[in-house]
């Protein structure tokens, strides 16, 4: 079993922070297929469409028949650890701080051997489960886990390095008034978060949810994503203490373009949903990026809760969907800006949520508890993209298959 991580001591502000480093990030274009699968936590490899041979490392042509048709497919992630090494010397600065490092060759039941990270609880020459996850460089890597879960296995340094595990970490949930906040606070508390901060805009207005949040031990602080000054004050006080940020600020109204008569609601949607993300990132992003190597409670993830309509516009909420698309695009820029620090940006795409605004839409709808569960699951997996609820999953599948067909379906052209 893995030795459990102990709660970290209070930081001495006079000690120097560890400089953020990332593991080797260079990949060929073909290998980025592994990264794309890892962003959702899927274990996928190229399988030759002509002869069925499974390929690894990723290739541009089949090593059995020279076919260039090598689609990525989900692969049964089991195999056998054939041999291993413990690396005790390296010229790479990321791994040098983390030695010794266990690596080995696993023969996949589906065929090829793979060099992979080996979890500390894997016994020599044992059967293993493989997972494909993003490392701190944001690239897909394979990790071999024991066949069955072991006590405290999430505290293994290999796994901790690729997850965004909330345990022992301090979390900021941005919008206390969002109906999903109590479930988020509870789920993160249950996942072992050391401190939960909850932002509250216009905190002079009555707030019925305050007691419920304080009951789970959360600390409520003033925060308004449309107010740069409030964010600067927040950054001054809490900037160095936020390890995970969950941006659940949302402004939503029905309506598209010409069924509204002005741009006032649209401006508010963009103000909160897109520019709010930008202001938050400008205020808190740099401090989080500087603390990604800061021990057990290092800064690890930035989470945006987005509507799946960011992928394709839903005309009955056309203007809101546009603000979500803008937020998604900004999040891609932000992800690139975080890259050098290893700070993970995770977008949780949700279908219509079970609240007053989506009341006219038919089920299935996503409950706050379901979103909270997926946020924690995504943090544990260190994912970049999580699709929450059947509607979001379905929309993602259709988007991957053909975005133009999806657009036509969303605008009433499908059956």
């Amino acid at each position, binding site marked *: 079993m893995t030795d459990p991580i102990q709660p970290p001591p209070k930081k001495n502000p006079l000690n120097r922070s560890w400089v953020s480093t990332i593991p080797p990030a*260079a990949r*060929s274009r073909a*290998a980025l297929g592994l990264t794309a699968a890892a962003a959702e936590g899927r274990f996928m490899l190229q399988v030759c469409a002509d002869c069925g041979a499974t390929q690894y490392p990723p290739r541009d042509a089949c*090593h059995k028949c020279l076919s260039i048709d090598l689609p990525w497919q989900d692969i049964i992630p089991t195999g056998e650890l*054939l*041999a291993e*090494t413990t690396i*005790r010397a*390296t010229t790479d600065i990321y791994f040098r701080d983390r030695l010794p490092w266990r690596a080995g*060759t696993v023969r996949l039941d589906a065929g090829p051997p793979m060099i992979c990270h080996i979890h500390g609880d894997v016994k020599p020459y044992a059967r293993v489960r493989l997972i494909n996850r993003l490392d701190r460089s944001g690239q897909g890597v394979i990790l071999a886990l024991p066949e069955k879960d072991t006590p405290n296995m999430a505290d293994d340094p290999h796994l901790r390095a690729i997850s965004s595990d909330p345990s022992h970490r301090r979390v900021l949930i941005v919008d206390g008034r969002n109906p999903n906040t109590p479930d988020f606070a509870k789920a993160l508390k249950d996942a072992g978060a050391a401190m939960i901060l909850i932002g509250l805009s216009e905190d002079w207005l009555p707030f019925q949810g305050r007691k419920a949040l304080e009951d789970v031990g959360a600390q409520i602080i003033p925060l308004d994503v449309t107010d740069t000054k409030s964010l600067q004050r927040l950054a001054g006080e809490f900037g160095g203490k936020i390890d995970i940020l969950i941006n659940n600020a949302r402004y939503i109204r029905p309506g598209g373009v010409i069924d509204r008569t002005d741009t006032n609601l649209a401006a508010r949607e963009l103000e909160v949903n897109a520019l709010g993300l930008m202001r938050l990132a400008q205020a808190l992003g740099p401090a989080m990026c500087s603390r990604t190597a800061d021990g057990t409670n290092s800064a690890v993830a930035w989470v945006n809760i987005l509507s799946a309509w960011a992928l394709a516009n839903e005309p009955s909420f056309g203007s809101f969907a546009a603000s979500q698309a803008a937020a998604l695009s900004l999040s891609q820029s932000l992800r690139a800006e975080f890259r050098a620090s290893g700070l993970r940006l995770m977008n949780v795409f949700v279908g219509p949520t079970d609240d007053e605004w989506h009341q006219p839409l038919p089920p299935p709808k996503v409950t706050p508890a379901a979103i909270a569960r997926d946020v924690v699951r995504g943090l544990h997996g260190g994912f970049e993209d999580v699709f929450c609820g059947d509607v979001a999953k379905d929309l993602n599948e259709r988007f991957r298959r053909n975005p133009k067909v999806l657009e036509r379906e969303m605008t009433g052209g499908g059956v």
Partner: protein
Amino acid sequence: MSRARQSYQGVALVAPTSIPYQRYSIDTAHFWIARALKGSLDAAGIAPADLDGFSAASFSLFPDTVVGLTQHLGLSPRWLDQIPMGGASGVVALRRAARAVQAGDADVVACVAGDTNHIDSFRQLLSSFSRFSQDAAYPYGFGGPNAVFGILTDHYMQTYGATREDFGRICVAQRTNALKNPGAVMTKPLSMDQYLAGRPISDPITLFDCVMPCAGSEAFLVMTVKEAEKRQLPYATVRGAIERHNAHADDPIQLRGGWTLDIDELWQMSGYSPIDMDLVQTYDDYPVISMMQIEDLGFCKKGHAGEFLCGKDMTVSGDFPHNTSGGQLSGGQAGAAGGFIGLVEAIRQVTGQAGPTQVKGAKRAVISGFGMVNYDRGVCTAATVIEGGGA
């Protein structure tokens, strides 16, 4: 694929040159290659401008290739080659040059390998070595070749029951040989106890299983036997030579190399068998790889190298002289020159020019090459049997 190979008859290997290695060098690959080339040309009495065949192997020439070297070094060959095969480059250079000389495409081919080693150049070489390494090996701890061969050594030990003492015997004997070679980087004796107490590097590999990256160069000339005799140069002849790439690709971890596919042909061509060899030069980036070659070249059964070597004395005065100049393990690894070190030393040996490391009466040698960890194993293998001229 059943046609018989033509013999290498009439081909002579002459003017073996080794430039003493340095741990670090502020000079370039061009500098090192020039020195070895000059050594061989001077020994043969050939002016650079008169050289009509040139073959180079190097990792640190960038942005130049062998083409840049011709202008840089003032060569005007009518036959030009570059061998990107690391540890197999010596034997492969020999094979190609021999055919060019036999066919009359060149009268004399200079085969040269050399690399420099700056303070940070090993790390830089690693990080741009191959696409598969970049994609699928380096992200897993960046242990470089040590990690790959750590896995391979673990698998070999697990499969065949080899022990660390089996590896240690090879390293200790080579150190004894190196102490006789004034050009070797390692200058202190190594005992089995010291070997076993070596600092762990990438389990089960420890310090003395690893080569020291350094700067250096090696060269020899290929010409006709007639030409060698005319110039009164001691020469070796080529009895046979093989190469093979990416063999046994479906083996999950490498326990054998491409030699196994062609070794019978090599011995048949040469007219000899393993017991006829006066010395053996294997590519020794790690001792497990030497053991793999001793098996695959036919000296013993697969998996039995440890047992086989246990009863042998691998020093230059022993009954199984192996890597007589100290090899890379004690001589250092000068990049692509590591693919030449055994061959150049063997040419000296069978022509009686090895000086302090001379194996008494040595006439015949087998030399094998192993190169290029493209991902999880060495891809290139090659071997040759040579014999002292006039035998």
